[in-house]
C-alpha cells in the first residue's frame, strides 16, 4: 500500500513505520531530510515550503508507484512537510519495505531523488542576515540514472502510467467528457523566482535585449508580450517550439492543453522532452520546462482536451490561440470557437515532409478554416503522424512558423494585406502562399460566424452521444457491449472482429439492449446512423453511445 502525503503538521514516525510492516518484509529502509543551518555558504535560520498541492500529490504518488514497479518492493510511503520549518525539523520522510535490503535501499534512493527532481515544491530560505530567497527544489543528479542498464528487472520508467480521470457516472470514460475541466494555475511570478545553476543560486531576471533591440519591438512591444495571454492547444511536435519560443519571448501567460502522456515515439520530434519524461503528462512536463526557461511566465494547464461545451469559454480568457494538435476535429472546433469569440487563431498541420499554415484573424469578412474546407474529411482519409509517419524537423519548422505568426500578431508587426494558406514542402524546399478569397467561402453559407455557430452546436450534440475509439477491443475492455447497426450486406463486406450484437438500425429493440445491463456502443459505417439510433435509445432509457466516425474511423477496420 503506497501513500504520499503533504502535511503542515509534524510527522508521526512510529505510525509511518508501522504502516509499512508486512509479513513478507525482510528489509526496511527510511530516509529523513532535515533542515540544516546553512545552504551554499549562507547561514539559514529557517525554511518555508510551498507546494502546488494537487500536482505534488499526483506526482508523488506516481513516483511511489514507479519505485514499487522498478524495484519490486512491497510498500513505499513518503511525507513532505509544507509551511514553516525550523533548523533540525524533519522536512521529508521516506520509508520502503521490501523482501530484501537491496531493493529497499535502491527504492528509497530513487524516491528521494525523484521527489527532489520532479515535485512542484518551492523552498524559501530565511537567512540570518534577515533576507530570504526562493529556491527551486530540483536536483539534476539522480543515482538511478548511473545504474547499469540491466541491474534489475524494471529498468525503464513504466510506460503505462496514465493520469487517473475521476469517474462521474456508471459508464466507462464518462468522466472524460462530462467531468469538470481540470485546470491548474501555476503562478511563479508571485514566488519571486530563483533558479539554481550548478552550485550557484541566483535570482533570475529575463533578458529580452536581443528582441527589444528590434525597432518594431522595443520596450513597448515587450510590454505587449508581458500583458499577453496565449493558449497553446497541444504540447506535441508543433506545440513544443510554440511553447518554447513564446515562453522565451516573455509572453505573460501561457495556457497549455494536452490530454496525453509522453510516449517514447514522441521524442524524435518533441525536443523539449527527454527519455526520463516518458509516461508523464505532457502538460506537467511543459509547465516545468517553461518554469525553467522563463520563470516569469505564468502557466495554466488543461489536462483534458477542450470540447464543444467549454472551448468558447476557455478562449474568451485568451488574446490568441495556437492550435498544435494532430487532430482535425480539434482544429475545426478551435476554428469555430475562435470565430465565435473573435480570438485570433494560428493553425498549422504537418504530413510526412510538408505542412500547412493558416492564420484565422477572426475578424469580420476575413477567412477561416471552413472557408477553405467547409467540413473535415473522414478521419480515416486525413492521415496522421501515427499512420503516415513524419520526419522530426517538419513539425519543428511549422511550429516555429506558428510561433512567429503568434508574435507578429501580438506585437502588431507588419503583415501582408491578404490572407493566405501557406504550403511548405521541405523535401523540395518549396513554399507557396495561396491567397484565400473570403467571398467564396463561408460567405456563401451565411458567413463564418453563422457557420461556426451551427457547427459548434452540432459538435456539442454529437459529443454528448459519442465515444472515440481507435480499436473496438479497447471499447470491449472498457465494458461496452458492441452493437453493429449496419445492414447484413455491409457487415459481410467488413465484419467486426469483436463479439457484437447485430441489430440493423431500422430494427433496434431497446428492451433487448436494456437487459444487457452494460453501456452499449452502437457502430455503423460513418457514425451517422449510430448517432441517430443512440438518440432514440436514450429516450427509452438505454445507456447508449455512438462510435464516433463509425467503422471508417477505426485504426484498421479489418482487424479492429
Amino acid at each position: 500500500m503506497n501513500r504520499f502525503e503533504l502535511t503542515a503538521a509534524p510527522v508521526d514516525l512510529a505510525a509511518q513505520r508501522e504502516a509499512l510492516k508486512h509479513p513478507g518484509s525482510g528489509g526496511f529502509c527510511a530516509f529523513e531530510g532535515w533542515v540544516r543551518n546553512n545552504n551554499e555558504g549562507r547561514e539559514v535560520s529557517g525554511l518555508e515550503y510551498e507546494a502546488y498541492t494537487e500536482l505534488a500529490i499526483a506526482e508523488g504518488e506516481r513516483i511511489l508507484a514507479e519505485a514499487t514497479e522498478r524495484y519490486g518492493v512491497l510498500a513505499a510511503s513518503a511525507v513532505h512537510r509544507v509551511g514553516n520549518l525550523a533548523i533540525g525539523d524533519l522536512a521529508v520522510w521516506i520509508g520502503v519495505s521490501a523482501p530484501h535490503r537491496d531493493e529497499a535501499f535502491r527504492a528509497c534512493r530513487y524516491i528521494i531523488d525523484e521527489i527532489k527532481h520532479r515535485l512542484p515544491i518551492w523552498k524559501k530560505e530565511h537567512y540570518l542576515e534577515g533576507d530570504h530567497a526562493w529556491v527551486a527544489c530540483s536536483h539534476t543528479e539522480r543515482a538511478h540514472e548511473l545504474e547499469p542498464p540491466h541491474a534489475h528487472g524494471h529498468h525503464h520508467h513504466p510506460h503505462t502510467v496514465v493520469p487517473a480521470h475521476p469517474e462521474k457516472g456508471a459508464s466507462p470514460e464518462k468522466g472524460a467528457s462530462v467531468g469538470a475541466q481540470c485546470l491548474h494555475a501555476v503562478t511563479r511570478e508571485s514566488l519571486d523566482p530563483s533558479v539554481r545553476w550548478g552550485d550557484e543560486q541566483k535570482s533570475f531576471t529575463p533578458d529580452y535585449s536581443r528582441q527589444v533591440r528590434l525597432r518594431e519591438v522595443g520596450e513597448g512591444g515587450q510590454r505587449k508580450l508581458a500583458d499577453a495571454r496565449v493558449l497553446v492547444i497541444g504540447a506535441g511536435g508543433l506545440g513544443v517550439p510554440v511553447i518554447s519560443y513564446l515562453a522565451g519571448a516573455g509572453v505573460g501567460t501561457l495556457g497549455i492543453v494536452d490530454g496525453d502522456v509522453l510516449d517514447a515515439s514522441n521524442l524524435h520530434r518533441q525536443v523539449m522532452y527527454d527519455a526520463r519524461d516518458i509516461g508523464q503528462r505532457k502538460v506537467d512536463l511543459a509547465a516545468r520546462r517553461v518554469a525553467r526557461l522563463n520563470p516569469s511566465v505564468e502557466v495554466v494547464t488543461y489536462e483534458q482536451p477542450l470540447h464543444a461545451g467549454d472551448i468558447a469559454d476557455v478562449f474568451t480568457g485568451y488574446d490568441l490561440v495556437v492550435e498544435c494538435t494532430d487532430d482535425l476535429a480539434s482544429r475545426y472546433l478551435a476554428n469555430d470557437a475562435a470565430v465565435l469569440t473573435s480570438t485570433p487563431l494560428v493553425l498549422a498541420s504537418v504530413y510526412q515532409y510538408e505542412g500547412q499554415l493558416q492564420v484565422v484573424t477572426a475578424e469580420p469578412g476575413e477567412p477561416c478554416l471552413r472557408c477553405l474546407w467547409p467540413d473535415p474529411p473522414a478521419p480515416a482519409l486525413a492521415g496522421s503522424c501515427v499512420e503516415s509517419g513524419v520526419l522530426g524537423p517538419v513539425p519543428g519548422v511549422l511550429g516555429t512558423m506558428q510561433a512567429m505568426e503568434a508574435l507578429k500578431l501580438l506585437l502588431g508587426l507588419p503583415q501582408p494585406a491578404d490572407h493566405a494558406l501557406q504550403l511548405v514542402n521541405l523535401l523540395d524546399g518549396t513554399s507557396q502562399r495561396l491567397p484565400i478569397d473570403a467571398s467564396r467561402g463561408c460567405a456563401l453559407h451565411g458567413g463564418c460566424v453563422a457557420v461556426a455557430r451551427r457547427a459548434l452546436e452540432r459538435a456539442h450534440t454529437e459529443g454528448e452521444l459519442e465515444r472515440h475509439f481507435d480499436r473496438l477491443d479497447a471499447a470491449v475492455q472498457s465494458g461496452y457491449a458492441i452493437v453493429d447497426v449496419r445492414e447484413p450486406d455491409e457487415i459481410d463486406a467488413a465484419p467486426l472482429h469483436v463479439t457484437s450484437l447485430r441489430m440493423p438500425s431500422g430494427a433496434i429493440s431497446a428492451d433487448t439492449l436494456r437487459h444487457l445491463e452494460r453501456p452499449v456502443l452502437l457502430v455503423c459505417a460513418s457514425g451517422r446512423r449510430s448517432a441517430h439510433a443512440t438518440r432514440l435509445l436514450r429516450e427509452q432509457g438505454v445507456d447508449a453511445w455512438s462510435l464516433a466516425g463509425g467503422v471508417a474511423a477505426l485504426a484498421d477496420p479489418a482487424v479492429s
Partner: protein
Amino acid sequence: MTRVTLQYYAQLREQAGASSEQVSTSASTLRDLYAELQARHGFSLPIAALKVAVNTQFSDWNRLLAEGDTVVFIPPVAGG
C-alpha cells in the same frame, strides 16, 4: 489536348508517387481532370475534401483548363 503541370500535397503526393508531374489531358475542367487522375493514381480523397488552386490562386472546380496552367490539389492534413 491541354498540357498542364500538376502539384500534389500530402496523401495525393504519396498516392501519385511524386510531388509534381506534367500531363497532357483531354479534360476540360478541373473537376474532369481530377476524376481522370483519380482513376489513374487511385486517389482516395473525394473532391469535397480538397481545395484546388491554379497558378497560385484558389479556384472553382468548374474552371476551364488552359495550356500551361499549374494546378495544385490540396487536402487538409491532420498531423502535429
